[in-house]
């Protein structure tokens, strides 16, 4: 149970960091587009700053995350194929854990069915947010993933303790 809880916390941190990094990358591309669209015939200067710290933090965290996930798996499942085809939060040590994982996955899937339409409605208002918070689609997607992951974890722990 402890491993599943830790994996869920790590997943939530990972999705949030990924949203942070990708929103930074999107800002960089926005700056490039702005640079391309600028009329340089009159001369002028163009400055933009790009923060590499989020990339560095995500890189370090990903190494730790991958190492922890690989290390805590049962030895018969320590294969690259398993690593890339199975969610790290899944714990199926025996038939009961498989049933618990199925129930938790179903709850997570239901959560998608609720959160995705809600966040789609929120995205309708993007013209109002774009100017002040252009990165919010990334955080919206991260929030959908995080909410579903947390619901998965809560149901998993509740069922495991029964």
């Amino acid at each position, binding site marked *: *149970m402890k491993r599943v809880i830790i994996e869920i916390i790590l997943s939530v941190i990972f999705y949030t960091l990924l949203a942070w990094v990708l929103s930074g990358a999107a800002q960089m591309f926005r700056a490039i587009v702005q640079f391309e669209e600028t009329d340089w015939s009159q001369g002028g200067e163009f400055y933009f700053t790009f923060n590499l710290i989020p990339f560095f933090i995500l890189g370090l965290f990903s190494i730790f995350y991958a190492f922890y996930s690989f290390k805590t798996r049962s030895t018969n499942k320590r294969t690259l194929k398993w690593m890339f085809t199975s969610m790290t939060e899944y714990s199926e*040590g*025996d*038939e*009961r*854990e498989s049933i618990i994982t199925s129930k938790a996955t179903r709850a997570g899937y239901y959560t998608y069915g609720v959160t995705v339409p809600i966040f789609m409605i929120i995205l309708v208002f993007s013209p109002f947010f774009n100017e002040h918070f252009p990165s919010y689609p990334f955080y919206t997607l991260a929030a959908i993933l995080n909410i579903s992951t947390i619901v998965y974890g809560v149901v998993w722990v509740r069922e*495991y303790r*029964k």
Partner: protein
Amino acid sequence: MAIRNRVKELRARHGLTQGELAEKAGVTRQTIVSLEKGSYTPSLLLAMNLSDVLGEKIEDIFYREGDET
């Protein structure tokens, strides 16, 4: 209708810990805990494994609520 079991009683009779029974039956200790609490109904395969380990017929380990004799 719930299914009850005598796993705790039979385990004690065989002098096994929950961990030992879990290992012999090929499940986690938490599954044995849940079985003994009556909050988990095992698959037929696990019931057969427990039957082998505890040396009892399945119907002598598991019974429907209200059928206890």
